[in-house]
């Protein structure tokens, strides 16, 4: 009997602190699997951001740095410039990347920084208890949009992939989702491709992953998957926005 599915070695044994059914866990595993498959665990340096995934440094079994809120792309830049042959990635939430870290992500992409960004878009601030994110959908209730997000008051959600795709330095830009098994598998392929783009030195790569926050959405994990599928995918269409010829 053969093991067909097991814990990737790029994950530590440590149990995560994520809420039951939070898809952060799935995304962690996909990243770890990609690292395993590429055999780069001992070359990988990850950058944890500030968000629910702040403890990512406890979970990924490689060298890790914990970055200030929003600044992971700058931290990764510092690392990559010192060790250009390492595989450097960040793992960031939507509050982290799309709100406070907007300048850092845009400029890392514009510079064509050879890093890989895993961008977990759950349309909310999970860690701090469910405040509005720049990615929060119009009408969505959060603790800081208690009457539902109103476009007239605070505008429309930012589509990060589309925005970064306007930058020539952004080699690979894609949006995937983990709301069901087929999409989880696609997400895995996207993450693999993103690392590949970095390995080949083609430029900046980012995988935006549509994710859930059952706790702050006030739903069961299953309801959350359904909500993500039914509400987020329309505003955040899946697909590749930029792909270098070399990995097409």
């Amino acid at each position: 009997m053969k093991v067909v599915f097991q814990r990737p070695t790029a994950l530590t044994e440590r149990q995560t602190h994520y809420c039951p059914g939070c898809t952060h866990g799935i995304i962690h595993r996909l990243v770890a699997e990609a690292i395993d498959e590429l055999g780069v665990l001992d070359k990988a340096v990850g950058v944890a951001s500030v968000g629910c995934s702040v403890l990512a440094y406890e979970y990924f079994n490689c060298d890790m740095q914990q970055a200030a809120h929003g600044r992971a792309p700058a931290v990764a830049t510092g690392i990559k410039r010192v060790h250009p042959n390492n595989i450097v990635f960040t793992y960031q939430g939507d509050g982290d990347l799309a709100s406070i870290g907007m300048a850092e992500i845009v400029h890392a992409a514009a510079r064509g920084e050879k890093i890989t960004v895993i961008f977990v878009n759950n349309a909310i601030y999970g860690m701090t208890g469910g405040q509005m994110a720049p990615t929060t959908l119009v009408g969505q209730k959060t603790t800081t949009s208690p009457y539902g997000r109103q476009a007239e008051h605070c505008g429309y959600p930012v589509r990060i992939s589309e925005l970064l795709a306007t930058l020539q330095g952004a080699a690979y830009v894609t949006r995937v989702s983990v709301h069901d098994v087929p999409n989880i598998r696609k997400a895995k392929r996207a993450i693999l491709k993103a690392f590949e783009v970095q390995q080949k030195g083609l430029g900046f790569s980012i995988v935006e992953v549509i994710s859930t926050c059952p706790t702050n959405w006030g739903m069961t994990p299953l309801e959350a998957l359904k909500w993500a599928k039914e509400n987020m995918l329309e505003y955040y269409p899946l697909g590749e926005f930029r792909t270098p010829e070399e990995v097409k």
Partner: protein
Amino acid sequence: MPKVEFERERCKGCELCVSVCPTKIIFMDEKINKKGYRVATVTEMDKCIGCAMCATICPDVVITVYK
């Protein structure tokens, strides 16, 4: 024969695995683990087809699949 193994103490009882199993053999145990969660489990293991859908969606890497 395919089979799955659950690491009880890692399970958080989210039921995502339950929702995707094509053979509908995963259910939630009455007993809670040390963290206080009801955990996922399989009794009719012979019905498992080793598709790993459950493991693929499990956020807590609770499940190992053999085939």
